[in-house]
């Protein structure tokens, strides 16, 4: 639409969102955005979801973006509205998820005056956004929105913030949406270097002990099919990072599960012993590598990533390939022309799997998080969207839920944001109506954004909220037991935890609770059938369990702990 008719900034804003095919925005109104909300009143092509806290809106946008595969959109007011989004933006930045955050701003002439509800949100978010903009004139508005969506969703995706001064929203110009986008300083490289790809294929097919190390980049580039082809053609074992789970089916025998601090023994041993390591859309972060000097010491390292800065950042690699992971995997697979016999390697891996499989205590009949997750995995056949919070339960989900699909595991990986699960599940629910959406939190993290239960109830979203209540900030408690002289400093929530069933009911969520193993199946079946609105189950689980295996922070594979050293240790 372009012509000579003048439109207001508010009209232009929504017209631009229409051009970007936005169907859902997560927001909260205020003074600086009131004109946009006035306009929104008559907008019918998108749904505005009213959150209860702006941090919630940003996590919703992230959940939506991962599941839908397009940017999540947030609209908040200036000052406190804007600063409340900071955690969610940092979270999306760390996990490379495309969200576009629109913040209201005080009128241009008041910027810098410490005006009411002014915050320099562009300055505040500079290091946690892929890019951000302050719109300085009405003419810039439409092209800036276009750039924001393009930057957020292309290359290595990430959050982009657009700050909208109130006077600009109120002024007028002719709507003109550029047909082509050209940012001379921004040209993401999609195709990998051909010679590098050929070299990679040769190294892979001549390897005796190759390993595919798969990160979230494979999911974000929709490269799971290509990965499946490469893995099946070569028979190479696959291990995934926390963000990579779902890129390759966890139920397949070539999957070794997750690697890293709480990864499987076999995956970590394979990393240690492999001769060619093929890192795909992964970033060698410290939770994966442990001590850099001893990480995968004998391997030839191939690293495929769309972001050149990811390469040689933590671990020096032998063969970098910059490009879109999906494309590069396909090209590597096409270059491979022989299948190497990997049976010795597999024998070795199977031996590790038998030596130390994932396991937990079942015989004593006590309710444990691992059991509940195993049951959920079984019942949903690995096909649900699982949204976790941060802590022990998060690691147990990564170990015991066998994801069969990409874009199904939503978690705060890089930032480790407690309070992520409840709102992110809501975002996911607006992106996916068919598959079940299950939010799993600890009792600590659940309390960090539980106001969003109200949002879930208001929109009658059939989300299953699950609380793994161990009465502790479990993951911190675990470190206190192992490394901090058993000083359980401020991690015992037991006495102060609320009655979660009452909380849920008060906020409009049908809620249940149990501490019995034999009630787990019944309750899960029950809530799976209740799809008129949100439901909640509190599982009162063992209080002092720990997540194993564990490679201590900054340690080597040889430091791995596979079980509690002193099983009788009690608080």
């Amino acid at each position: 639409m372009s012509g000579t008719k003048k439109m207001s900034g508010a009209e232009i804003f929504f017209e631009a969102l229409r051009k970007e095919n936005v169907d859902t925005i997560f927001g909260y109104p205020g003074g600086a955005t009131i004109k946009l909300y006035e306009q929104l009143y008559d907008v019918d092509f998108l749904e505005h979801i009213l959150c209860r806290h702006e941090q919630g809106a940003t996590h919703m946008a992230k959940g939506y973006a991962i599941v839908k595969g397009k940017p999540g959109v947030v609209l908040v007011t200036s000052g406190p509205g804007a600063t409340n989004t900071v955690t969610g933006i940092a979270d999306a930045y760390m996990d490379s998820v495309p969200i576009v955050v629109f913040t209201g701003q005080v009128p241009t002439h008041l910027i810098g005056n410490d005006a009411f509800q002014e915050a320099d949100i562009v300055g505040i978010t500079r290091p946690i956004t892929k890019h951000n903009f302050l719109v300085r004139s009405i003419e810039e508005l439409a092209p800036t929105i276009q750039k924001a969506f393009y930057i957020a969703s292309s290359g290595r995706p990430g959050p982009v913030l657009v700050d909208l001064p109130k006077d600009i929203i109120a002024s007028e110009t002719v709507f003109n949406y550029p047909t082509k986008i050209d940012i001379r300083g921004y040209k993401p490289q999609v195709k990998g270097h051909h010679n590098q790809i050929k070299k990679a294929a040769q190294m892979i097919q001549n390897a005796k002990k190759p390993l595919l190390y798969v990160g979230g980049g494979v999911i974000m580039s929709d490269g799971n099919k290509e990965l499946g082809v490469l893995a099946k053609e070569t028979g190479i074992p696959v291990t995934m990072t926390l963000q990579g789970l779902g890129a390759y089916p966890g139920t397949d025998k070539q999957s070794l599960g997750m690697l890293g601090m709480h990864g499987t023994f076999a995956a970590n041993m394979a990393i240690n012993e492999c001769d060619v390591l093929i890192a795909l859309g992964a970033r060698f972060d410290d939770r994966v590598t442990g001590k850099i000097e001893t990480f995968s010491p004998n391997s030839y390292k191939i690293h495929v990533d769309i972001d050149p800065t990811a390469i040689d950042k933590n671990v020096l690699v032998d063969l970098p390939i910059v490009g879109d992971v999906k494309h590069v995997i396909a090209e590597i697979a096409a270059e491979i022309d022989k299948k190497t016999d990997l049976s010795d390697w597999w024998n070795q891996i199977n031996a590790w799997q038998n030596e130390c499989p994932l396991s937990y205590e079942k015989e004593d009949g006590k309710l444990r998080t691992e059991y509940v997750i195993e049951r959920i995995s079984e019942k949903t056949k690995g096909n649900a969207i699982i949204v976790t919070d941060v802590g022990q339960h998060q690691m147990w989900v990564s170990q015991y839920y066998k994801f069969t699909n990409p874009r199904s595991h939503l978690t705060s990986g890089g930032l480790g944001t407690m309070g992520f699960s409840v709102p992110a599940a809501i975002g996911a629910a607006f992106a996916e109506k068919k598959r079940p959406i299950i939010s799993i939190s600890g009792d600590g993290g659940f309390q960090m954004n539980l106001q969003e239960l109200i949002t879930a109830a208001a929109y009658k979203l059939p989300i299953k909220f699950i609380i793994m209540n161990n009465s502790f900030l479990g993951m911190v408690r675990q470190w206190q037991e192992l490394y901090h002289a058993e000083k359980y400093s401020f991690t015992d929530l037991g006495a102060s935890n609320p009655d979660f069933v009452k909380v849920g009911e008060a906020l409009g969520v049908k809620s249940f609770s149990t501490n019995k193993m034999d009630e787990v199946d019944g309750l899960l079946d029950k809530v799976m059938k209740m799809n008129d609105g949100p439901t909640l189950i509190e599982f009162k689980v063992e209080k002092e369990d720990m997540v194993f295996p564990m490679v201590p922070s900054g340690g080597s594979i040889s430091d791995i702990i596979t079980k509690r050293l002193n099983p009788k240790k009690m608080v």
Partner: protein
Amino acid sequence: MKRTISVLVENTFGAFDRVATMFSGKGFNIDSISIGQTEIEEVSRMTIVTEGNDQILDQVVKQLNRLIDTIKVVDLSKEPKTVRELALVKVNHENHSLQEIKNLADIFRGKVVDINNKTITLEITGPPEKIEAAVNVFLPFGIKEMARSGTVALKRGEQSIPSNKKNKTK
């Protein structure tokens, strides 16, 4: 090892801040930074002198490239280049003859740009080592105040860094 990086950036709101934020956020050092106009109106050139080994420098260049507002990043460390810095040095001349100071300034091709009965201000231009040497010479006289521009640099020869060529990757 000192490195000189030349960065062409969009002359947009906050572009300079982004570069500075990146350096502090990633823990990279900045020895000196200078910024000014180029032959193209909407493009500025930043010349950054930093310190670090090859791996750090590689990251610095890649991180600079990653910023949306940067158009071109070139590591000039190993290139033949012209490097200049300007210093204004206000020297105390109360206990020394003006002629002595002027003679020394001449050795560095320094110019007298201001004078009064207590101090003399010299303008010295040249590669940073030369400025360093001059400063050392005037230290015993008492330097009242000094301002240095930071390094600017251009590659030698006819080649230039094209600011419109789209050859960067992110």
